[in-house]
């Protein structure tokens, strides 16, 4: 038993961090029209094989599992990467037609994430997408949305566009049954939220070491130190549970879903509370548009609603049981 990145897992983490820092640094979001992946960016993610990370080798993937999936998406989260990256990975898991799968893995076909929104459907990310992926706890379907009329909505989170569609077309391209796609979505969003919680902590710790008030570094005041310690605690708690859940999924344990629900809940909480504290402890500079603090908060608010929000997760956890 070991519950931290180890061996090859450390290399994957480093490779993912390097890739994200070059391809999608969080600073990109200060420019106009920076939401989603554009075609060129999607192609560069595809060329590195990130969309195919957990697909079996026979299907053109790297044959890795939930642990590597979580490690990759934690780095995507740190840079407030668009939801498109995850949607594209999940869509490739659903596609059983080799040509369709190859086009998705190559980033030639873009996919938006479809989520219910009142009586309508909300499309997240991939503004140029010709298809949309809808995922539930018992299955998933990939549908063509070519020609569908969508209404652009102003998106709070700069990394991700939002559109409304009166109803999702029935032009089904592929379907999957079972919990796998949902669980990989839940794990991926939880990991992105962990990355956000950690990035918020890093931002304030760095600032507290240089910013001075009343003649001292603010990191010497307990009014700053103690909330930072609480942020570290929330990140550590969420991280340990996320690693446990990822390993439980990788090993096919029966209680993996419950550990995953606990992890998603703790990652939701850690990301929202840490990004909140990060802005507050920065003071005035924390609410400016030029700072990264609000980008992390807004992305956390979006991811916290996907693949398990607070109410649904807590409802499931109340009656769930785990093994040794």
């Amino acid at each position, binding site marked *: 038993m070991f519950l*931290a990145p180890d061996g090859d897992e450390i290399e994957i983490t480093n490779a993912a961090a390097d890739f994200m820092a070059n391809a999608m640094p969080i600073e990109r979001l200060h420019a106009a029209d920076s939401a989603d992946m554009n075609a060129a960016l999607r192609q560069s993610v595809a060329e590195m094989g990130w969309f195919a990370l957990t697909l079996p080798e026979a299907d053109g993937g790297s044959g890795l599992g939930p642990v590597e999936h979580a490690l990759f998406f934690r780095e995507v989260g740190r840079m407030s990467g668009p939801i498109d990256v995850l949607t594209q990975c999940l869509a490739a898991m659903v596609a059983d037609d080799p040509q369709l799968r190859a086009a998705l893995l190559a980033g030639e076909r873009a996919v938006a994430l479809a989520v219910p929104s009142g009586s309508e459907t909300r499309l997240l990310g991939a503004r140029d997408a010709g298809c949309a992926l809808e995922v539930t706890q018992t299955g998933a379907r990939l549908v063509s949305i070519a020609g569908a009329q969508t209404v652009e909505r102003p998106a709070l989170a700069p990394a991700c566009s939002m559109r409304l569609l009166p109803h999702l077309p029935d032009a089904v391209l592929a379907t999957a049954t079972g919990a796998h796609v949902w669980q990989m979505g839940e794990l991926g969003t939880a990991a992105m939220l962990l990355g956000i919680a950690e990035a918020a902590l890093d931002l304030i710790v760095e600032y507290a070491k240089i910013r001075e008030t009343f003649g001292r570094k603010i990191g010497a005041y*307990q009014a700053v*130190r103690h909330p930072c*310690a609480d942020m570290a605690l929330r990140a550590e708690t969420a991280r340990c549970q996320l690693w446990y859940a990822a390993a439980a999924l990788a090993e096919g344990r029966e209680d993996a879903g419950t550990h995953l629900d*606990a992890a998603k809940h*703790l990652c939701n909480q850690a990301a929202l509370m840490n990004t909140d504290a990060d802005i507050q402890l920065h003071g005035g500079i924390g609410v400016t548009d030029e700072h990264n603090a609000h980008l992390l908060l807004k992305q956390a608010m979006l991811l916290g609603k996907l693949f398990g929000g607070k109410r649904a997760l*807590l409802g499931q956890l*109340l009656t769930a049981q785990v093994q040794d």
Partner: protein
Amino acid sequence: MDLKYSDADREFRARARAWLAVNVPTAPRPAHGPASAQFDRDWQRKMYEHGWAGVAWPKEFGGLGLSGLQQVIWYEELGRARAPHYINTTYIALMHAGPTLIARGTQSQKSFHLQRILSGESLWCQGFSEPNAGSDLAALKTRGRVEDDVIVVNGSKMWTTDAMHADYQELLIRTDPGSERHKGLTWLICDMKLPGIDIKPIRTMLQDEHVNMVFYDEVRIPKANVVGEINGGWSTALSTLSFERGLGFIGDQLELYERVNRVIDLAGKTRLESGKLAIEDDGIAQKLASLKADALAIRAMTLAHITESDRTGQPGPQGSLMKLIVTATHKSLSETVGDIIGWDFLEFNGDRAAHPWTYDYLWSWVFTISGGTSEIQREITADRLLGLPRAR
């Protein structure tokens, strides 16, 4: 990353479970007085005689020489078997004094004390805090005058749990009269039967007297009882505290999940004043589910930290985070019980067996204050884990 137990781990769990199933005492532990200490000694002796004491202690010091993970398995099985709670009068001996002597003691200190600790023959208490030195431990003033072969101690210690039952004390004093703060301290083994020691109980909000003040009047302690160096006691004390913050609450960490489930059961059969079941109240249900997630994460943290220290050979710097979350979760669970059981929560006469939930609630402050307050744990985290500028 993996969650797999080795064959040896599984075999150890099966043997532990089988032994505990027939050997856990059936009589309840007396709540107070010498009978409670005798009960703890007897249970510890039984575990020792059957080869279950000191699971992760090295073999050369009488332990089983097993991994930290197997130690976790042992505590899980103790909890499952409803064995006597491990935080009892043997706690300081097994969790503080023993590990400190293994790390820093002389050969003769080890050979005299370790076997007595494991077998329940010696009970220990702690002598660190003073009336004016608690969180600020380095402000301590109890003096030790170094004479030929003895150190003569004068002063007082505070919050000493179970002092009246203890055979020995881990005593931290100032031996260099001109010294300040962390310098000039010495960690001593103090025999509690020495002349000049006077114990005065302190009554607490739990209506009990488990903590004490201890006064020292010309108490003569042999120099051979110094652990570490004379005037180098701070470093010995830090190793003592790192054991508590690392693994000292391991049993509670693992038991929390089961406790949350017990409260969920309670909420499923207790009616609120409105007439509806407590579990049907959204606020209570969400709180309990959230506590269950916390309890699962605490277990994951325990396993993450222990398997890491199995590799590195020492507890990591995350021990303070562990103490923070375990104690906060305990308190939050107790508060939720208060929301569930209503007026019953306000009935209390000091009897733990009769009023367990209220007792646990009152105990939650002992948990967040003793062994380094939550505020001190945040300071340690800010210094050592985050590297923030020093406040002090």
